[in-house]
Every structure is written in structure tokens, then in C-alpha cells.
């Protein structure tokens, strides 16, 4: 799928039809249109949302989900799922809080340890899925429960300790560091770097074969691709980015017992909303990012509309189904 409209030929009417087709195609353009629409509605309801300070606050809040959605994108485009990312984010924040317990000197060693732990989880997810041939739905569902249970066991049920101030800078601060004034959040920069690197990666042979594996693993294998290693690397990327998201989320709001809960469904919904096909083989990184932004914007809209939080899971479920149905509709036609 391409993000740029081909307007080189055809009349004005043809161009209009092409635009309409692209908007309704269930791909990146649809979700981009939805994002613009949702943001416009928010601004109509609450004009202060359009102010730079508010937009940056929104970017800071949305950045972790963007990072998480991109990690999920790699796995989904290769034809698998990663349901363990929510638990992994929770586990990482709790581990960080307990190990550093507010001690500045331990910040970077603990971040290093988190990265190692994250990659280890990704490696296990990848190898169990590819070499032991356990469906990733099961592997990562199991990993989700294992992480959730292990953390409860380790902490006696609820987190202890505290995150150091320097750990929290990335998720909480920005520059210039004057509260209440316009600032560019570091979280936004992290998300932009992640998006940039992910786009580059998808243009490289790794990215192209990853999509090919998701589309048709057998054909990709015959053409010489190492399917198991490609998919394992996708899981490694997902867990790595979940760790980055954990640093951002922990930084944003500190440690609570609920951190990370339900994030795997947020990430999958975001990716699917971006028109990335479950089952793999179709969709772009940028679409996944736009999907994440749209989902966050929708939740902001729900807040503005004072939609009760008890209804939100139901709405998220409907969005998930509609997005998948939309993507499927395009494939049939």
C-alpha cells in the first residue's frame, strides 16, 4: 500500500473518485481522515485543545502508545500477535521501581537491566512461537499471565519502591523545562525517533521480507528467507519497544498497581485501526502510528464528551471489530 495519491493521470473527476476510494479503502487514509475528524470535533467542543501547550500534553500522553503500537506492528505484519506487551510494561515499571527505590545512582543500571529483561521476554516469545510452533496467540497469552503472576508473586501483590527523578525525566519533562509553558516533551522526541527508525527498517531488506513472511510464509521460505529468525526478531523488536514504552509510562505517572493493564489491546486496536491486516502481510508503520494517535484522540474525545469510563471498553471493542471488518471489506473487493 502506498501513502501518496497517484494524481499523474486522469481528469479532475477521476482524481476525486480516487480520493474517495482511498478514503473508504480501510487503509491509512481512512484512519488519517478519522484522526483529523476526531481532532476537529475535540477542538470544536474545547477550543483550548488547539493551543500548543495542550497539543504537546496530548503528544506526551500519546507517545507511549505510539511506541507500543509500532512494536506490535512488527509482530502483526509478520503474521503473529503479541499479547504480552501490557503485562511486560507493567512488569518493567514495577521491577524498575523496586530495584532502584528512588536511588538516582541506580537509574541507568536498572534501565540496562530492563532492556535485557525485555529482550529476553521477546526472545522466549519468538523462539517458542517459531521453533516450538506454539501459535503466538497462545505463547504471548501465556507470557502475559506468567509476567502478571510472577510480578504479583515477587512483590506480594502490589508494587513497592519508587522511580528515581532521572528515570522519570523522559516520560514527564520536556524542553524548555518551565512548567505550564510551551515545551517539547522528550516523550514526543523518543516517539519520533522510534517512528523514523521503524520506517527506515521497513524499507530495508529486513522489513520487506518481514511483510513477505506475513503475507505468505511458505513462499517467503522458498525464496530463501529465514522465517523463524525474521519472526523472532519481530518479537524482539516488540518487547524492546514495550520496554521503551515502560520507561515513558513510568516516567509519565510513576508507579501504580494498575500500570500497563489493558495496553496490549490498546496497541492491537491501534495497529488494526491503522489498517494493518491481522494475519500479516499488509500495512505500514506510519499507519500504525496514526492508528495509535487516533485511538488516544478518541479517548480524549470521550473525556470531553463526559462519556462514562465504564462504557469505554465496550466502545474500544466496537472500534476493534469495525476496523477489522473494514479492512476485510477492502480485501474482498
Amino acid at each position, binding site marked *: 500500500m502506498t501513502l501518496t495519491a497517484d494524481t499523474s493521470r486522469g481528469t479532475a473527476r477521476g482524481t476525486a473518485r480516487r480520493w474517495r476510494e482511498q478514503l473508504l479503502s480501510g487503509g491509512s487514509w481512512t484512519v488519517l481522515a478519522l484522526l483529523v475528524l476526531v481532532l476537529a470535533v475535540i477542538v470544536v467542543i474545547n477550543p483550548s485543545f488547539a493551543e500548543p501547550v495542550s497539543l504537546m500534553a496530548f503528544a506526551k500522553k500519546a507517545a507511549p502508545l505510539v511506541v507500543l503500537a509500532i512494536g506490535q506492528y512488527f509482530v502483526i505484519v509478520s503474521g503473529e500477535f503479541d499479547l504480552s506487551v501490557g503485562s511486560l510494561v507493567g512488569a518493567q515499571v514495577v521491577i524498575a521501581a523496586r530495584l532502584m527505590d528512588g536511588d538516582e545512582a541506580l537509574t541507568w543500571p536498572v534501565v540496562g537491566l530492563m532492556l535485557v529483561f525485555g529482550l529476553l521476554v521477546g526472545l522466549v516469545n519468538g523462539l517458542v512461537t517459531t521453533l516450538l510452533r506454539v501459535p503466538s496467540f497462545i505463547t504471548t497469552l501465556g507470557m502475559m499471565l506468567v509476567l502478571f503472576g510472577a510480578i504479583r508473586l515477587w512483590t506480594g501483590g502490589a508494587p513497592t519502591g519508587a522511580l528515581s527523578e532521572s528515570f522519570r525525566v523522559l516520560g514527564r519533562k520536556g524542553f524548555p523545562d518551565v512548567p505550564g509553558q510551551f515545551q517539547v516533551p522528550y516523550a514526543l522526541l523518543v516517539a519520533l525517533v522510534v517512528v523514523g527508525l521503524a520506517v527506515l527498517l521497513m524499507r530495508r531488506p529486513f522489513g520487506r521480507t518481514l511483510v513477505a513472511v506475513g503475507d505468505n510464509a511458505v513462499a517467503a521460505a522458498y525464496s530463501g528467507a529465514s522465517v523463524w529468525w525474521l519472526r523472532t526478531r519481530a518479537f524482539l523488536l516488540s518487547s524492546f519497544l514495550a520496554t521503551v514504552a515502560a520507561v515513558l509510562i513510568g516516567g509519565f505517572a510513576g508507579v501504580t498497581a494498575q500500570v500497563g493493564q489493558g495496553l496490549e489491546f490498546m496497541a492491537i486496536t491501534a495497529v488494526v485501526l491503522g489498517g494493518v491486516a491481522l494475519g500479516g502481510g499488509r500495512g505500514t508503520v506510519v499507519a500504525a502510528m496514526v492508528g495509535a494517535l487516533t485511538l488516544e484522540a478518541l479517548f480524549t474525545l470521550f473525556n470531553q464528551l463526559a462519556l462514562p469510563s465504564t462504557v469505554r471498553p*465496550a466502545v474500544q471493542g466496537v472500534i*476493534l471489530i469495525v476496523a477489522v471488518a473494514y479492512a476485510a471489506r477492502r480485501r474482498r473487493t
Partner: protein
Amino acid sequence: MRSTRALLASAAAGTLLLLTACTTDTPTEEAPSTETSAAQEAPADSGAESEWFVQADYDRELAQRDVEPEGPADEPWLQAIEPEWVDTADFAGEDGAGESGDKTLCFSNASVSNPWRVTGWITMQQQVEVLQEEGVIGEFRVSDAADDDNKQISDIQAFVEAGDCDAIVISPSTTATLTPAVEAACESGKPVIVFDRGVNTDCMVTFIHPIGGYAYGAVGAEFLAENLDPGSTVLALRILPGVDVLEHRWAAADKIFSESDLEVVGVEFTGGDGAKIKDLVTQYLQRGEVDGIWMDAGDGSVAAVEAFEDAGQPYPVFVGEDEMSFLRKWDETGMTAIGNVYSNFQWRTPILAAQKIWAGEEVPSEWVLPQAPVTDADLAGFLEANADMPSLHYAKFGGEDLPGYPEAWTDR
């Protein structure tokens, strides 16, 4: 088609998970629909105009705050407000085990899924150890239901069927669903002790709880009304709807707010999630000033304070809880605040109640424990006493005199 199947399966599974996520024991059938307009029109399913608000209970709880409790002042977990004593001689020395001790105490715990319960659970275990060394308790048998009503019902059944529990302590996960299970436990003839959340029966020997949700909610709302100018704006942050203790907190606060000159700009459910709290408060601050924050529990209160810091706004008048992270933040920032208390030391009381029942001593049929907030005046004392405690510890945990102190609570 592999992809189509995966697609269908995942969509189905996703919906199922999402749907089951919101079907817990919620006494109200419909979801709240008008929280943010609470200031203008009281919603029918939450707050002072809802079925959750019982005027008589409200009046009683508010009055109980000023009643001098009976019992030793330095052991608040043994104090009782307006007790009606019941005779327990029938339970003394029955069941083979004899009066000599070595009783089997069975405890069905709703969960240890939040820091408040974890803190209380440690205190309870320390109290049990003391009685085990004294030879009063032989075996302490525990089932953790992990917030699952069905699991807790079968946990209680298992205790009843085993037949060798000399007393059954129950901390119910929800009110209505657990009532028949508690009744079944009572029918087994063993002494049953219920604490924390209630059930709709009075068959147990004693029901132990702090004064209650109305008093909790009222303390914070009164504090805001006293410390804010008329016309000030208040944002209420609630964890979740449909749990009686939490609904009572909000119902009492809603009543006081509606009688005051404060304007409630919003009532939001947060699930106790720090990220969500911070996001919500930030959004309210974008739309206008917020002068006061009322919370129905302390989880994530620091995230709410940080939202004001990051937005460059002056600190609000804040109603938090006696959780250490909040008390420390309060001290650090010097803001006007109060630390509400849902007495964590109540976790000791059921164990001591079992000891009394086995000894044939009288216990109150409804054991109402004192529930006094942490104020500006005693903040420093609690900070000093709990200096080594982790941030998700509760100041009024009441375990300072137990032998495991302080390691049991610091190294959790």
C-alpha cells in the same frame, strides 16, 4: 484462509475479553451516564440522590466520628465504637481441639491486589505469628480469591466442607454475591468473622469494619468546603462504580458538595491508574482552573498532584489518603491537604477477635473501629514513624508493636 480465521478468532476473543472485563458484580444495571453534570443534576445511579445514599447510615456514621471509642487508646484495633456485646461462650472449648489451643484459623481473602490490602495482609500475618508462638493458633489456612467472587465462594465452601476450621475469617470481595456463602459458613456452626467489606446478613459472630464510607467521603468534602472560597471548583476522582464502600464515599461527598457553594466540575472514574489520573487532571486544567481535588482512595494521588506541577498551576486543596507516597508529597509541597484513613489496622482485629471467641470472651456484634484522618497537625509524626516504609505503605497500619516490625513491612 489462515488470515481470515485468525482475524475472526482474534476479533471474537478480543470482544469477549473486553466484555468480560466489565461484567463484575455491579449492583447497578446501567452505567452512570451523567457524572460530569453532577453539579447541575444529581445522577440517579451515583451520589446523594441515588439508591446508594441512606440518610440514616449517613447520619450515624457522621455522628460516630465524634464518639469516644471503648477500649485501649494505644491499641485502636481493639477499640470499638458503641459496641453491642454478644456472648460467645457457646464457641469456647468445643470441637475436640479443646481450650488448650492449637486451633485452626481459616481465612478467605478477597485478594491482595492493591497496596492497602497488601499492607493489611502483612499486619495480619504478623499478628497470627504472635498467636502461633503463644500456642493459640496451630494452623493458619489461607485462600486468596484474587478478586474472583466465584473462587471465593468455593474457597469458603472448601473451608466448610473440610470441617476442621475452628473459626472462619472472611474478607468478602463483593457484598451481594458473597452473602449466601457467608450464610452457609455460619450454618456450619463455626464462628464466622467478617471484616472490611460487608455482606447482607448478620449471621456472623462479629462484623469488623472502620466507621465507613460515608464518614470517609464526608471528611474530605468538609475539608474542601472549609478550606476553599465559595464558588471554587472541585474535581472528584473515583476508582470505579458499583462497590458499596466506594459508592458511600462519593454519596456523602456529593451530599456535602451539593449543600456547599463549591462547584463540582467533574466526577471521573480512574481505575486507580496513575497515567489515567494524570491525563484526566491535565485535561481539566486545560479547560479551566481546578481549586480542589477530592479522591475516593489515595491510589495515584501523587500523579494528580504532578499534573498541577507539570501544568504550572498552583497546588489545589487536596483530599488524599494515608498512603506514604501521598503523605511525603504533601510534606514536600506544603499544600493544604488531608489524608483520609480507611483504618488499615483493621486487619489485626479479626485474628484477635478469633482469640476472644475461642476464649469465650464477649465481642461486639458489629465491631466499629475508629477512623480518624491524618491532618496537618499529626502529619510530621506519621512521616517520622514511617520514615523507612515504602511509598505504597499506609501510615495507620497499626503494627508498630508486633515483633516483626519494621522488617516485615519494609522488606515486602
